[in-house]
């Protein structure tokens, strides 16, 4: 299975950098997310994860280092986290590490809301 690599940019919209590794299961998303077509962009990420879960069946470490995302992105992130939670419930090994600026109270609240929403253990890592 191929890795998923998307180079982030700041040109018109904010495209996050995506680096999902099919060998190690380390899946990192970083930068900022504010896109023209959020659903379309995140569809490829969800599909990659579904394939990985289906074919590789390995561990997943989902690493989030987003310093900003808009509300439509927040919906797509919820879809990803729900998918990971389902995988974990079926016996998959899942770790979620969410890095955030310790001064960004709003971001910490967002992470807490995801924990409540999904029931996943999300490790909050302030920097």
């Amino acid at each position, binding site marked *: 299975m191929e890795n998923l690599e998307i180079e982030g940019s700041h*040109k*018109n919209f904010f495209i996050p950098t995506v680096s999902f590794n099919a060998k190690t299961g380390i899946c990192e998303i970083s930068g900022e997310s504010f896109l023209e077509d959020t659903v379309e962009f995140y569809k490829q990420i969800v599909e990659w994860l579904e394939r990985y879960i289906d074919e590789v069946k390995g561990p997943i470490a989902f690493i989030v280092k987003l310093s900003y995302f*808009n509300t439509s992105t927040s919906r797509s992130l919820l879809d990803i986290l729900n998918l990971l939670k389902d995988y974990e419930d079926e016996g998959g090994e899942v770790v979620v590490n969410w890095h955030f600026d310790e001064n960004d109270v709003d971001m910490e609240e967002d992470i807490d809301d995801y924990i409540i929403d999904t029931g996943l253990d999300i490790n909050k890592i302030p920097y």
Partner: protein
Amino acid sequence: MDNQLNSNILDLYRTLGNNTPLSYKGPIDDHILQVIGTYIGGLLKHSPKAGKKVFKIFIELAQNISYYSAERSKLSNNKDIGTGMVLISEQAEYYTFMTGNLVKTDDIITIIEKSEVINSLDREELRQYKREQRKLPPGKKGGAHIGLIQVALTSSNPLDIEVNPVDDEHSFFSIAVKIDK
């Protein structure tokens, strides 16, 4: 030269005054979002915390105009883009971020009701409301509401909403929100 128009623009300039670092009226497409977004970043460098909040609020509200404004502009690339106003004013203790755009009068009741719900909730309730709304399928109109919830959360202040009918079918919908420095 049309002197009337010239004195109108002078009036407008004076009305906006020194404490309005940004005002824009026109179509809001991705280029405008980018330009104004970058400008806000530079403008508010000296207060990064408030600056980030103004930026987040700008993105949500400006995107709402771009998607939902009843006044549309056709750009040269044939894209149909919502038109409206964006304003930032600065006071000693806070910034005020404002947007204004035309809305079909039929849609206005829903927006007012949603805003009143948002203003009646405390922070914890607002977070819960956002989580509930986020679980719903992302219908186009629903997207605007979660944006408004996020604006209230980001600013930690109530939404100041005003609606003024402009003709039989349209109202001018404006929203002002305070961001403490």
